[in-house]
């Protein structure tokens, strides 16, 4: 048998799942899509006393448009989200980035919530959630609380989730009109984790100036980061290719990547600048198209 021994539970209600998490605390692991947890179990890098499988809770597999935006349930599969018409129309940055998550066979099972709770520092979705200013709903027997994505990622593979808490919903506010998006990454092979990835949103005002730019990066530190110097340099400014290039260069002020076996710090900084420029350009072009439409 590949995985170590554990007690397996497949609760049939959210209350039952939360009761199990309360009982086992840090000794339990939540199994959603399993595309990160199962490799860790198969390699015996983790040995939880209990596995709490959410897959018999189909009520949590929703992708729903609400007055406050988009709501994704804990069990919403990546493939399902990527293809949902509401996502493609209203939050195309998320659909675009999902194409880079693993492979189609991984996304069939993998969940958006699971990727966020796993918090791999090279994963795509955490950075996308920073750019989209997602709000994450955490539930436990003690109650519910909502955190902005920026307060959720604490360190590699470490989030604000308490041991008895479940990430039960991801909420995305609507994007303003005249907004363009782009997600791009550089990885060694298609489907692998990003060396560096960038998610950009550019919103134009009535006059075609930059009302707001958002840029979030993955693979450049222990947690995903917003590039605040870049964003500040673009807000309120008229845009052209040169201004975007100059602003993108500021990304190096925002980041302090480390060298590892995959890439040196200098190469990561270089990729961050190049990807910042490319994604801002592409997002700006889409925002211009949205303005004409």
């Amino acid at each position, binding site marked *: *048998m*590949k*995985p*170590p*021994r*554990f*007690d*397996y*539970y*497949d609760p049939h209600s959210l209350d039952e799942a939360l009761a199990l998490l309360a009982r086992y605390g840090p000794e339990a692991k939540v199994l959603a899509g*399993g*595309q990160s947890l*199962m*490799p860790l*179990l*198969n*390699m015996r890098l983790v040995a939880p006393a*209990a*596995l709490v*499988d959410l*897959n018999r809770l189909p009520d949590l597999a929703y992708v729903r448009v609400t007055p406050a935006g988009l709501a994704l349930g804990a069990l919403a599969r990546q*493939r399902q989200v990527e293809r949902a018409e509401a996502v493609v129309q209203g939050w195309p940055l998320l659909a675009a980035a999902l194409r880079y998550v*693993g*492979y*189609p*066979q*991984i996304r*069939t*099972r993998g969940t958006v919530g699971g990727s966020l709770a796993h918090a791999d520092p090279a994963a795509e979705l955490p950075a996308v959630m920073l750019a989209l200013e997602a709000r994450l709903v955490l539930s436990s027997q003690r109650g519910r609380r909502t955190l902005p994505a920026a307060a959720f990622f604490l360190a590699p593979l470490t989030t604000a989730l308490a041991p008895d808490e479940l990430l039960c919903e991801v909420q995305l506010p609507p994007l303003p009109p005249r907004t363009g998006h782009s997600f791009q990454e550089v990885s060694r*092979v*298609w*489907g692998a984790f990003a060396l560096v990835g960038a998610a950009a949103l550019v919103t134009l005002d009535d006059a075609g100036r930059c009302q707001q730019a958002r840029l979030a990066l993955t693979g450049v530190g222990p947690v995903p980061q917003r590039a605040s110097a870049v964003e500040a340099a673009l807000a309120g400014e008229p845009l052209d290719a040169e201004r975007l290039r100059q602003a993108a260069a500021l990304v190096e002020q925002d980041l302090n990547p480390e060298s590892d076996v995959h890439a040196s710090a200098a190469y990561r900084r270089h990729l961050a600048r190049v990807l910042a420029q490319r994604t801002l350009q592409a997002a700006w072009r889409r925002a211009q198209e949205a303005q004409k439409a």
Partner: protein
Amino acid sequence: MNPQQQRVVSVIVNGREYTGTVPTRKTLADFLRQDLRLTGTHVGCEHGVCGACTVLLDGQPVRACLLLAVQAHGARLETVEGLAAADGTLHPLQQAFQQCHALQCGFCTPGLLMTLKAFLQENPAPTAEEVREAIAGHLCRCTGYLHIIAAALQAAAQLRGERA
């Protein structure tokens, strides 16, 4: 029987029902191979990267090494053993793989065939680029992939009723 450690699992594989008692920590890939003796599903990396163990779960391609057998309880599975007709006539994908030399050692082939079966149902007339993306989650160390792409396109044409 402690239900947290052992469960009765019933699945339909290639149209036939199977029931077995499995440890809850047993992967679906091992259940198929060891308990059901359906050894056409290959096991390579066992952490979701190589694609050799890909099977269809309720019609969708999944990694059998990243699922527990107990999670498949009640599901309908398709494996490479179900592709050919009962009289042994190969599926158009299998015929195309043979004709285009899309395999050499054959280790990756079952997973590729299952991924492509689901992919061509969804996208019956793909471009070569779309086939590349569809099979990106499979490692093949023999062919260099070009013949696999050719086979996928040939099978797609045949399944559409065109002469390849």
